[in-house]
């Protein structure tokens, strides 16, 4: 297994570690390709690996006892999954899967727990990331209660846009409907509204962000706080 060079790693958390602390764990990191649709965790199943994405996007999805689904959170190069591992929890609480083709460094659950116990910098970074993720979750929850579909969609597109290079996001209306827990025609209508305002272009199987500042202004009540908090939490850590 090739040991990664910290300088070339695109995962924010791993790149923040002081070099000596990174050295301690670098041998435990395995590079993997995760195409769209890959499941990296199922609710109730043991956590085999922790994933630090270097590209792409993953989703954490809640499924209710009667089979209803909604996305709880999104992660990319900014974080890691599953966050529950820092609490020494061994089972996945949610379904986690990849929604935009990703690459990642993964670490076994045992190696992760060992690093948490022996590497102060590592545990500091992942605990901070878990807090940042909790904040994202809380704002998603609030947005789901307060904002209409169009605004929630705008927020979601901005969050995706933050995590991909370029302006294109590959996804179907059906997929968006599942993530936002609405009916597909509501997605179609909302995309149409955002397109009418010039913020995006909606094409078969993808959305292209055309006016990021405009989209952000439109979603100003729904998007931005978790991202500010993340920047604040990850600054001057070491």
């Amino acid at each position: 297994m090739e040991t990664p060079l910290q300088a070339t790693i695109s995962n924010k958390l791993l790149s923040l570690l002081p070099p000596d602390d990174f050295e301690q764990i670098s041998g435990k990191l395995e590079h993997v390709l995760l195409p769209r649709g890959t499941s990296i965790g199922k609710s109730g199943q043991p956590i085999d690996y922790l994933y630090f994405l270097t590209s792409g996007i993953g989703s954490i999805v809640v499924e209710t006892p009667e089979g209803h689904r909604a996305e709880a959170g999104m992660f990319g190069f900014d974080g890691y999954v599953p966050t529950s591992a820092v609490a020494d929890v061994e089972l996945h609480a949610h379904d986690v899967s990849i929604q935009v083709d990703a690459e990642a460094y993964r670490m076994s659950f045992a190696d992760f727990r060992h690093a948490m116990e022996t590497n102060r910098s590592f545990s500091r970074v992942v605990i901070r990331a878990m807090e940042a993720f909790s904040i994202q979750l809380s704002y998603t929850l609030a947005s789901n209660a307060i904002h209409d579909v169009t605004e929630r969609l705008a927020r979601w597109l901005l969050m995706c846009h933050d995590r991909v290079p370029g302006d294109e996001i590959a996804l179907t209306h059906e997929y968006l409907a599942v993530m936002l827990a609405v009916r597909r025609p509501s997605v179609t209508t909302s995309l149409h509204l955002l397109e009418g305002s010039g913020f995006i272009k909606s094409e078969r199987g993808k959305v292209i962000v055309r006016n990021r500042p405009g989209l952000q202004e439109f979603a100003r009540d729904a998007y931005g706080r978790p991202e500010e908090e993340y920047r604040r939490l990850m600054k001057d850590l070491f």
Partner: protein
Amino acid sequence: MSMKRYYFHIRDEGGTVLDEEGEEHRSLEEARQSAVDAIKELAAARIRTGEVIGNTFLDVCDETDAVLKSISFRQVIEEQLKR
């Protein structure tokens, strides 16, 4: 029973929002039911924000763009009021 793809276009005086993706159903009746559920969600959202619903229709079409069924939002809301 084979699945067919149905397209749900939303039409009102301002124009039509085209559904370019569609969804699969086993029958037109199943598609119609899905369309009614979608209308309920769309209409409820519009009521909440005070938007006009007036003359909005959901046209259920096949791949050839033939309109198989046209359902008015007004009709769906009136059905609800009768309950």
